[in-house]
């Protein structure tokens, strides 16, 4: 297969052998599991259990309320201890609500497993997508986007190719590699299911050429008659070739449009771990409750890959990998390029946790003081999205958020290549993250301001209406009074006049002047 290149990128030392030397370890069930309510991109979920409830393994414990959302399931059987704020893996080191499950050590499924669909080929895309949704599956490459939404392209888009992302380009991470080595059949079956859901005609399975064992395992697991349908492609290891857009460019030479999706090119990209989870959900009726995490780095005694339940604390994972080496000062979730530092090893594994990297001070020497940008253009040369990082940096620094968007800030994948090569040690990616979040934050504030304006204007309108109505009411009352008064007044006046006239006539006829005088005096 003829391969293409994306712009820029870096050759990095891969550091994968450290963790792939040991076989995959399936961890036991820890005493307490901390399952965050929000482990994905999108709206948080709504808990379905209360403290004290018994849950069986795989039971849905938190419900997705939105389309871009994923259910959360109990990783093991036991009792819900509490629902509390607990630190979660997030660059802010803040806490978020987690369901704490106290394991009963039986790890029993009960009747919570969905029926196994061995006949998935007979089922339609809709019911299979619903199964993926019911299993709470999200993209397991790290971004954690709800998979069911990704498998449902916009109406009118025809998907011809499923791209399976087995590139795993970031140094140190090897969880996909181990998965491809240990269960290639499961991944391929998952790929077949997804191709069936999407109606794709071919599957392009891309694996970086630094994973020969995985390539061999996959090729062996592929059925002989499928060579055309499933093409296993060895791609050069250049960071960040595992980015969805970069991978598609390498495989097809076509660029996903800015603000577009791979679906616009008739392609959908899925991570190997996600495919395995889809296969487990369809063939075994199991929801997503565990994943493989690479526990590695010079700060770990025995780096290896561990299959852990969602909600297992990092400290337990690290203990399973032999514990910390002396002098560890830094724990990162994700790889060295795109990961973020974790402040506390009590945070739990979530669906998007692919790697835990522990380092010592001597492994990550301080990059030196930040110097001014000298416009050398190195960052532009390595940018895989073909942007102008130094321009983005100037605009982000000057808070010129219109220009920074004009220069394609939202096409930046935050891969960190620019910051890696910057001779002035400028933390470029942090500037881009800052600018992106500031733009989103301002958008939210603007929406809030619009709502406040609407409410304020409505209130003014209401007050004016009330004033007007009050004035009208008063005017009506006044008018009614005014109408009534002259009525009675004229009536009494007329009566009086008649009376007087009569009295006058009477007086005149009798000639009694004195009575007429008296009448006049009375009147």
């Amino acid at each position, binding site marked *: 297969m003829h391969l293409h290149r994306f712009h820029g990128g870096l050759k990095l030392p891969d550091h994968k052998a450290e963790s792939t030397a040991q076989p995959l370890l399936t961890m036991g069930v820890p005493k307490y599991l901390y399952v965050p309510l929000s482990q994905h991109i999108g709206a948080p979920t709504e808990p379905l259990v209360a403290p004290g409830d018994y849950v069986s393994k795989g039971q849905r414990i938190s419900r997705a309320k939105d389309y871009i959302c994923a259910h959360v399931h109990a990783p093991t059987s036991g009792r819900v201890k509490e629902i509390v704020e607990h630190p979660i893996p997030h660059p802010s080191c*803040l806490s978020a609500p987690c369901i704490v499950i106290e394991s009963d050590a039986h790890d029993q499924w009960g009747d919570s497993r969905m029926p196994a669909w061995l006949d998935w080929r007979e089922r339609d895309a809709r019911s299979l997508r619903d199964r993926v949704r019911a299993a709470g599956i999200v993209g397991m490459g790290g971004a954690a986007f709800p998979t069911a939404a990704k498998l449902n392209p916009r109406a009118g888009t025809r998907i011809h190719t499923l791209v399976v992302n087995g590139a795993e380009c970031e140094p140190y991470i090897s969880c996909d590699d181990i998965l491809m080595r240990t269960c290639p059949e499961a991944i391929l079956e998952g790929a077949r299911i997804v191709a069936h859901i999407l109606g794709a005609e071919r599957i392009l399975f891309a694996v970086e050429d630094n994973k020969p064992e995985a390539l061999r395992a996959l090729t062996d697991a592929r059925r002989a008659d499928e060579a055309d349908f499933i093409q296993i492609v060895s791609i050069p290891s250049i960071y960040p070739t595992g980015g969805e857009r970069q991978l598609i460019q390498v495989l097809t030479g076509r660029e996903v449009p800015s603000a577009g999706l791979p679906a616009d090119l008739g392609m959908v990209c899925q991570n190997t771990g996600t495919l395995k989870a889809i296969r487990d959900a369809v063939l075994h009726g199991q929801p997503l409750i565990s994943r493989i995490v690479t526990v590695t780095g010079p700060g770990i005694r025995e780096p290896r890959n561990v299959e852990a339940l969602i909600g297992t604390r990092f400290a337990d994972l690290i203990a399973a990998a032999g514990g910390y080496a002396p002098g560890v000062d830094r724990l990162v979730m994700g790889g060295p390029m795109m990961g973020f530092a974790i402040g506390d090893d009590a945070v739990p594994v979530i669906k998007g946790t692919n790697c835990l990297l522990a380092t010592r001070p001597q492994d990550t020497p301080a990059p030196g*003081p930040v110097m001014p940008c000298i416009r050398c253009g190195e960052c532009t040369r390595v940018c895989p999205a073909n942007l102008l990082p130094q321009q983005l940096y100037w605009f*982000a620094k000057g*808070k*010129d958020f219109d220009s920074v968007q004009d220069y394609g800030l939202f096409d930046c994948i935050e891969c960190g290549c620019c910051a890696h090569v910057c001779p002035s040690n400028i933390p470029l990616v942090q*500037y881009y993250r800052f600018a992106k979040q500031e733009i989103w934050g301002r958008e939210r504030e603007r929406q809030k301001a619009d709502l*406040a304006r609407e409410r304020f204007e409505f209130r003014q309108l209401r007050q004016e209406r009330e004033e007007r109505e009050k004035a009208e009411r008063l005017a009506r009352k006044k008018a009614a009074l005014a109408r009534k008064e002259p009525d009675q007044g004229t009536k009494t006046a007329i009566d009086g006049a008649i009376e007087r006239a009569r009295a006058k006539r009477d007086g005149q006829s009798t000639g009694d002047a004195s009575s007429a005088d008296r009448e006049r005096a009375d009147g």
Partner: protein
Amino acid sequence: MLHAILAIAGLALVFGLILGYSAQRFRVEGDPIADQIDALLPQTQCGQCTYPGCRPYAEAIAAGEADINRCPPGGEATVLALADLLGRDPKPLEAETREKAVAVIDEQTCIGCTLCIQACPVDAIVGAAKQMHTVIEEECTGCELCLEPCPVDCIFMVPLQQDIADWRWAQPEPSPVERPRRATGDVTGKRRESA
């Protein structure tokens, strides 16, 4: 000679008529500049700018009566946006930006007088006479206008808890070797890099 004068006079007449007609036909109601300014203001209706609400302040700016740096809730971002819109130089804020907060009524102490309900510019307080009142947190703009009318001082401003959804990456510290910025502060540090 005469032809030229007649031609010019004729053209002047035609264009004059067109302009006069368009001035009548396409007259813009209201004040579009004030609308644009109002759209940039945070709509807290707090009156910290000394005008009774965001709209009056927007109109005052449009009329050239007020400066653009009088809106503490909008902060530096609003000053920059206004400076951009109006082509003026950004200025540092007149007053300190306060921490974002929402009003909370101590329901034990509330006597149900409805005075705060009448003061709230965005109808964010619910309650009825001699009934307990409460603030709808999502609608509260933090303007503090309800604090003053309360006869029993049972309303407090509670700073907003930072949650993960609202958390933002901080802007990195500038390089220590870079030239220090002018004393007027960050707002003038906006660089106008030409493309």
